Structure formats: C-alpha cells, structure tokens
C-alpha cells in the first residue's frame, strides 16, 4: 500500500478540551505529529504575552494545530461525495491544516517586528528544507512538500483547499476563537461550530455556508468581535508585548555595540546579526528565551536588566489613552521631559496602536479587496454575509482602532517630589 494511503491499525485519539477528541487514522499525519519540528510547537504559546492578563492562557501552538487539523478533518468528512470536492486532496488539506503554524517562533509577533522575520517564510523553509517534516512529506511524493507549502502560503491553485485553512471563516479561526476562550476563561468566543460545519458547502473557489446557517455564522462573527476587544487587544497584554519588544531591541543594540554580556547570548547572535538560518530558528523556543531573560535580569546594563525584571516578574508599564491628532505636541514634550528625568524615552515611552497587533475583524470590504463570507441561497445564488445579516452589518462599520501610551509609572513616581519635571510629566499623563 502506498504510504499516502496507509492507515494506523487502530485510530489514535488525543483528548482535547475544545473538540473533546482529535482523531488520527492516517499514518502520514501520525508521523508528522511525531517530528521534532512539530513537537517544538509545544514550547511556543498560542497567545504570546496574554498569559500576563489571563493566567490560563498558557496553551500552545501544538494544541491549536491539532485543533485546526481536527476541524478540517470534520469539514472534509462532510464534503465527501459532494460536487466540487476532490477526495484526492484530502491528505493535502489535513497535512496543511496540521502544519499551518509550523514556522511560528517564540513570541513571534515581537520577534518578527524586531528582527524583520516572517513566520510564513520559516514555515516554508521547515516544509521544504532538510527536516523531519520534509522527509515524511516527501515519502508521499516528491512534489507533496511543495504542495503543502503552497496551500499554507495561499498560492495553491485550488482556492477551495486554501479557503479551508485561510479565509474569513476557516478552520484556523474557528479553532483559535474557541480554544482561546476556553483557556482565557472568558465567556465570549463560543458559537455553534457543529452547525456551521454541517452547512458548509464546497464551491469552485471557496467554502460557502448555506443561508439556513446564517445565525450560526452571525454568532461566530460576534464571538470574533468580542474576543478581539476583550482578549486580543487587551491593554495589559499589550503592555507586556511592548516591554518584550523593547527587551529585544535593547539586547540587539547592546550586541551591536559590542557589549559584553554576562552570559554570551549564543541562541540570539544570528538574530542580532540578521543571519538567522533554519537550525538557529528551530533552537530558539520560549523556554530558551525566558531563560535568557532570567539571566539578563542581573545584567549590568540598567535598561536591559530593568526591562527583563518587568517582563519576568510582571511589573508592567501603565498606560493612558492617546490621541495622536490632539496630543502630538504633548508627546514631543513628554519625550524631552523623560530625557531630562534620565528615563530613556526610546525604551520607556511607547505609543502602541491597534494596527500593531496581528488580528483582524470581519470585513466585507470592496470588490476584489478580500474575499468575504458568502451565503448560499436555495436558488444557488451567493450573497455576501453583511448584505443579509443586520447584526453583521452593524458591527462591520464600527470604529475599531485605538492608541495607547505606555510608560513606567513607578519610575516617574520615584522622581523627587520637588522636581518640576515630575510634576509636568504627571500633569500631561493624568491631566
């Protein structure tokens, strides 16, 4: 029997708090889960710094990847024998679902910003490079790794396959909304996924939803909207992210200035030098990063040491609302006042915008901008969701942006009470 068709003697199941069970029958999928590159995802948190706000949010990209695989498995079970669905693409969908986040590094959002990296690029490199994952995919056929990489990169010819994993109603989002809700403990993020899966239909280029399932989809869109504001855009989480980003900037700057670290940062040097190869990338997981942060708490450099203490011990920056339209001159004044007070504004005065975060809302958008969710009417006609649903339309047009100014309140309060600088800083920040 060809490797691609091999089944395990007995179905394996992973107990899962969101989907109850994740079922694995294909030998290829089982072997992929066992690779070091996939196991590494256990050491990369799904929600980055959110655990500083929601203490339960310690779940990993490993959990999420299995969840996405399971949802895709259920969707394509329902697609069997339906028009537009090609059963030959089953294994491709399952493998791409399982591996879609393979290239995420530790705290990947901050790392990507500071070191100009792209996790999708690393996903591709892991799939196509000299890795355990590649060896398994090649056993299916020589071109299979390439196909899996294309599905994940969204450049695969059959857009139906791509849309299962990446569209405005895909397995990725359906898993992370429910999983993140479960682990953060919030009461949002719940929707009737079983109903959505039952009414999904394969079309030539996309997955659509039968019109009768519109209310389940409305619930999904509402969950998404609430989760963004309540969890993903949470200002305390963003404070931790701001500090993390500044730690990486500081460590890089010190390295570039030949600073002598107490412990040579071997795992970071290729990142600092901008020459990260695949092996370096795979070695740096969140456990390693946290080890360095722990060590850097005792560094001689006061900025690096202070920022690491803040991050590790959760002594975060405070924040106020900030309107760049009305407060630009105040910001410039603050910048000077911080310098005068001996608090480096490049590290301790940060404006963070919602567009700096890697999450998106449902947008019907403009024609040709981004594919919206389509409802399938009984007569075969397709209608964009917000045209049919008042609920979705009402949240599609809302303002969804905000800016916050982050700073170390404790350092400002530590300035002498007689200091005019302190008085003025507090006046600007708190009115």
């Amino acid at each position, binding site marked *: 029997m060809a490797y691609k068709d091999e089944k395990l003697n007995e179905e394996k199941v992973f107990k899962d708090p969101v989907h109850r069970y994740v079922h694995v029958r294909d030998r290829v999928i089982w072997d992929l889960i066992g690779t070091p590159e996939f196991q590494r995802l256990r050491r990369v948190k799904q929600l980055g710094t959110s655990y500083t706000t929601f203490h339960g949010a310690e779940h990993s990209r490993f959990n999420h990847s299995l969840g996405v695989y399971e949802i895709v498995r259920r969707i394509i079970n329902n697609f069997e024998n339906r028009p537009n669905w090609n059963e030959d693409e089953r294994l491709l969908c399952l493998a791409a679902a399982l591996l879609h986040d393979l290239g995420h590094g530790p705290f990947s959002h901050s790392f990507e910003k500071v070191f100009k990296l*792209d996790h*999708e690029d690393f996903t591709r490199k892991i799939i196509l490079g000299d890795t355990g994952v590649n060896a398994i995919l090649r056993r299916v056929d020589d071109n299979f790794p390439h196909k899996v990489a294309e599905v994940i*990169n*969204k*450049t695969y*010819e059959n*857009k139906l396959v791509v*849309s299962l994993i990446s*569209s405005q109603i895909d397995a990725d989002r359906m898993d992370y909304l429910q999983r993140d809700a479960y682990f953060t403990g919030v009461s949002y993020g719940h929707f009737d996924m079983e109903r959505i899966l039952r009414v999904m239909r394969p079309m030539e*280029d*996309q997955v659509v939803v039968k019109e009768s399932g519109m209310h389940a989809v409305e619930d999904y869109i509402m969950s998404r909207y609430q989760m963004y504001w309540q969890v993903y855009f949470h200002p305390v989480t963003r404070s931790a992210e701001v500090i993390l980003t500044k730690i990486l900037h500081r460590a890089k700057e010190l390295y570039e200035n030949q600073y002598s670290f107490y412990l040579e940062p071997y795992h970071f040097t290729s990142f600092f030098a901008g020459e990260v190869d695949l092996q370096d990338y795979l070695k740096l997981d969140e456990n390693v990063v946290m080890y360095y942060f722990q060590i850097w708490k005792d560094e001689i450099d006061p900025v690096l040491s202070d920022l690491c203490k803040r991050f590790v011990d959760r002594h975060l920056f405070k924040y106020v609302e900030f*309107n*760049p*339209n009305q407060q*630009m001159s105040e*910001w*410039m004044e603050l910048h000077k006042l911080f310098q005068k007070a001996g608090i480096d504004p490049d590290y301790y005065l*940060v*404006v963070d*915008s*919602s*567009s700096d975060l890697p999450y*998106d809302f449902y*947008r*019907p*958008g*403009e*024609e*040709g*901008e*981004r*594919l919206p969710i389509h409802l399938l009417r009984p007569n075969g006609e397709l209608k*964009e969701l917000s*045209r049919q649903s008042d609920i979705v339309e009402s949240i599609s047009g809302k*303002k*969804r*942006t905000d*800016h916050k100014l982050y700073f170390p309140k404790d350092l400002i309060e530590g300035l002498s009470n007689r200091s005019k600088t302190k008085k003025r800083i507090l006046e600007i920040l708190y009115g």
Partner: protein
Amino acid sequence: MLNNHAKLVRFFSQCEEVVGRKRLQKMIYILKKAGYPFEERYEFHFYGPYSEELTLRVEELCNLGFLNETHEKKSNYHQYRYSLTEGGEEFLTHYEDMPFKDMTEHIHNMNEESSRFLELVSTMLYFDQLSRDECEEKVRAVKKKMNYTDDELQQAWSFIDRLLN
C-alpha cells in the same frame, strides 16, 4: 512613534486621491517592492497580495482625522476614496526629517493603470523569486479567472522593469 502611519500619510500627500481600497493595497505593495520602506506585512489572498495591517492603519488614519474616506454604494459592493486632510498635513510636519524618496512618478504611473493591471503586477512581484516563465505559469494558475493575455503579461513585465530600474 507612529512612523509607519507617517509613511502612509507621506504617500497620500503625494497623491491627489486614491480611488479604491484594492488599488491602494496594490499601490503600496508595488512601492514596497520598489524599495520604499513601508512595513505593512502582506500575505497572498484571493485577489493577490493583501495587507490587513494596511487596512487597519488606514482605518486608524481616518479615525484620527488625517485621511478623508468617502464611499459610494455600487450594485454589490462599496467603493472607497481617500484623500489627505489638513490634520494629516499638520501631522506630517512632525516627520519632516523622515528619509523617504519621492514617490510621485511611480504614483503617477500607477494611477495611469487599471486596478486589474495593478493586481497583475503585484501578483507577479509576489512571485519574483521564480523565473519569468515559472512566474507567468504561476500567475495564470492562481489568476485563472482573470484570463490575462500575453500582451498584458508583457506590459506588466515592462512596467516592472521600469519600476525596478
């Protein structure tokens, strides 16, 4: 602070108006590929390179009053127009030292072209790691429904050559 916003405001200050979000997405992507330091992250979507970060940042600029957005309802969708406001011009005065090459010629050239053509150019640029033949084959595969002609592909190559040289 807000350097990425300022770069976009600089772009709008060099256009009279941008008609269409799709056009805006493709213009920024093409400029980015031409070496302008826009940092919005792009992914390949159904209609070619698309940046959610750009969408949200433009929304922020509108909410801040730096950009004016108008939209008109077409039969099955909305069409958006963007132009810089006085507030946007004032914001830009804080970034006069920001190094940024002039974009007006590229903007003018892109505005002469249709959105369909910009979609083709940006998709070809997305596959710029492939050889020309491979790139054309890929573009035809992922853009089957657009039915791009040989002539359009040739024009797109000429456009890209002018852009990058």
